[in-house]
């Protein structure tokens, strides 16, 4: 037990260090960059959860955007009335986060129950149908504000810090701290016994069962943990943008989350951070590059080019470096890279995609 405690402590310390660094870094950024940083941190919550789910338990979810939306709505539904009731900022924020955790956890639990019964493509199909149905859900379920979504109370800079920072920086702080709170437990879980169980279930369910691990319980647990992290990310986005609506959480956004975790390296939390930064910054960067071009060409490229690059990255990474950027740079990186991607100690099951074997797979997937 001492070993685990030491490891947990070192993870928490490292997380605290990285959080402090990120908080300090916000001083170097202008308001727009701080806004982008906040969005990255929120996206990171979701990608960290997704990478754990896909990389460790092998469950492909195309619906993580919905889980973020669940968190955002959970936050808005609680924090809104709390603000009306006159609760001060900190209290309504805490209550809002609780709402986000409860709703995203519940949706994740339901999906987890389904995931425990369904194989890869079937789970992908169910989550796909869910993400497609989100706009309809937002329109049909009363109280969700239809396609315009819900407003979220504004969280201004608290008095003590008001002289030091503008609201964008304060929101970046909120996002960074929530991301730290959401992701650190994932890292602890991943490196501990739960992580081993997840890998065992992914590797061979029968063997896992023989070893006394219940695949269903592990899968549901992984889904809930992953969902709560995504939900917290959704809550952060709701705070930062003062709004939660179905438009943001489209299938395209779900696919971008997948791009982030695959490109970052499935199972790697550091990779999920890099991936989150990539999906937030690349479209903006590409559009900025394209803005110098003739109007017609710019209009054609705008939006489309970034998607093409993401698609190409997804293909290239999966075909050439199945472990993602985390392993693609393995030869080059030294200790700094190791710290970044937090690769499991030697002996752990590789976190990327499983090794190859001649295809097609003769076993009917539905019967395994």
């Amino acid at each position, binding site marked *: 037990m001492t070993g685990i405690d030491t490891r947990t402590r070192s993870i928490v310390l490292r997380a605290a260090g990285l959080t402090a660094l990120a908080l300090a870094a916000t*001083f170097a950024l*202008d*308001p727009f960059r701080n806004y982008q940083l906040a969005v990255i941190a929120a996206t990171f919550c979701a990608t960290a959860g997704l990478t754990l789910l896909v990389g460790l338990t092998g469950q492909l979810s195309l619906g993580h955007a919905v889980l973020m939306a669940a968190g955002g709505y959970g936050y808005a539904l609680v924090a809104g009335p709390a603000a009306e009731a006159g609760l001060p900022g900190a209290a309504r924020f805490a209550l809002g986060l609780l709402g986000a955790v409860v709703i995203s956890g519940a949706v994740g639990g339901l999906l987890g129950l389904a995931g425990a019964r369904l194989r890869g493509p079937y789970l992908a199909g169910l989550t796909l149908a869910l993400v497609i149905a989100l706009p309809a859900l937002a329109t049909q379920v009363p109280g969700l504000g239809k396609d*315009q979504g819900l407003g979220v*109370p504004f969280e201004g800079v608290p008095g003590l810090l008001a*002289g030091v920072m503008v609201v964008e*920086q304060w929101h970046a702080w909120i996002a960074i701290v929530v991301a730290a709170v959401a992701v650190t437990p994932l890292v602890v879980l991943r490196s501990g016994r739960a992580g081993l169980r997840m890998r065992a279930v992914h590797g061979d369910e029968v063997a896992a069962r023989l070893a006394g691990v219940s695949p269903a319980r592990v899968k549901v647990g992984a889904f809930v943990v992953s969902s709560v992290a995504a939900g917290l990310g959704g809550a952060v986005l709701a705070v930062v943008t003062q709004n939660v*609506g179905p*438009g*943001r959480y489209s299938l395209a956004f779900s696919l971008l989350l997948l791009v982030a975790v695959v490109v970052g390296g499935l199972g790697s939390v550091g990779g999920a951070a890099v991936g989150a930064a990539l999906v937030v910054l690349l479209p903006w960067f590409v559009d900025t590059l394209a803005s110098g071009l003739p109007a017609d060409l710019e209009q054609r490229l705008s939006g489309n080019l970034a998607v093409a690059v993401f698609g190409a990255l997804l293909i290239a990474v999966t075909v050439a470096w199945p472990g993602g950027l985390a392993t693609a740079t393995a030869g080059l990186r030294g200790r700094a890279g190791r710290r970044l991607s937090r690769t499991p100690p030697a002996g752990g099951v590789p976190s990327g995609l499983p090794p190859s074997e001649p295809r097609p797979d003769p076993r009917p997937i539905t019967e395994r």
Partner: protein
Amino acid sequence: MRNHTPTPAARSRATRASAAACAVGVGLTAAACSSPAAASPGIDDETVKVGSHQPLTGPAAAGFSSISAATSAYFEYVNANGGIHGRTIEYVVKDDGYNPANTQTVVRELVQEDEVFAILGGLGTPTHSSVLDYLDQNGVPDLFVASGSTTWNQPEEYPSTFGFNADYVVEGAALAQYAADENPGAVVCVLGQDDDFGETFLEGVELALGAEGVATYQTYSTSNEDVTAQIGAMKEAGCEINLLATINGFTAMALGTAAQMGWFPQWYSSSSGGDYPTLVGFLGEDVGSQLLEGFVSANYLPNSPGGDWYELFQQINDEYNDGAPFDGNTVYGMSVGYLFAEALAQAGEDPTRESLVEAVESGELVGNGILPLTFGADDHAAYDGVGIAVVTKGVQDFVGATYRVDGETVSAADAEPVPLENDGIPTP
């Protein structure tokens, strides 16, 4: 919730303070932190910079991406003729793909990075709703939103946000009243988009006809490009006049689907989905011109072939927009540009954000519509009425009927088209 929002002044104080703290305390340059807000950003002696968010890509791009190109072309025309108060207008358009997430990013980029003077003609209800609070808190004039939602007309809550379209209530009420006037006793039905657009339009229709006056209300969702079931229901309900709160593509779908059922009722469409050239584009030249004969739609802009404004805009389109297809979107985009130029001219020699908003609220702007603008301190909607246009032998033009909505009442009014002056370049 509004109680928690800081005033723009409070915010800029905080900005200044933090910039100082930033520079001193952490030892970084002030430029990297928030630069203190100047009197009004985005304007100097030579140029004034305005920004917009538009769907240049994605599903909504097909119907709307030509609007901002037309606005750009109009500003180029103004700039080539000396600008406003000697300033050229720089118009920055950012693509949001009709996705609120992107809208939130690009609008912040416009305000914080490009430091625009104002946001002009941001397009879409769900998209623009997501940045209303942000623009309000930052004191950015939010002029002439491209949507007919009534959300933009809340002067108390959003003092610097102004709409441009005649709102959907006005359009619904006017079309319904026209139906009742022309065909008393006809069975009237409504097909609407399953969001704010459809619902607000229906409110207007019921204003004119009463809740009992609508035989059936059917909805469609933009994600399902098939309206057979809805049209079938309307046909069975014996509808004779169908009022449409649909975007152009779905107007075309509705007419096409009904024709496939051998059903040819009368169609009355909102201005958002009633543009003849666009509809012909969807339906094809032969089918389109047949099905659209007698097609009724609402409009409030000088969309009248042969009119002075129309011809001027055609000229500008040929000269500054590479002769792009000329349709309702072109007229719309240029009209938004004209109204902004007029507001800027009214805002004084050295406009500030405040004086720009005051100019719009002054009630002195006339625009270029077929009715007077209704802007005032208590009213942030541009038009309270619309004219009725009908397609006759392939030409869509006003027929003279005009309706205005005052509170709960719809009444016939006289059109008061604004004459073209000074070649469409506003003077103070």
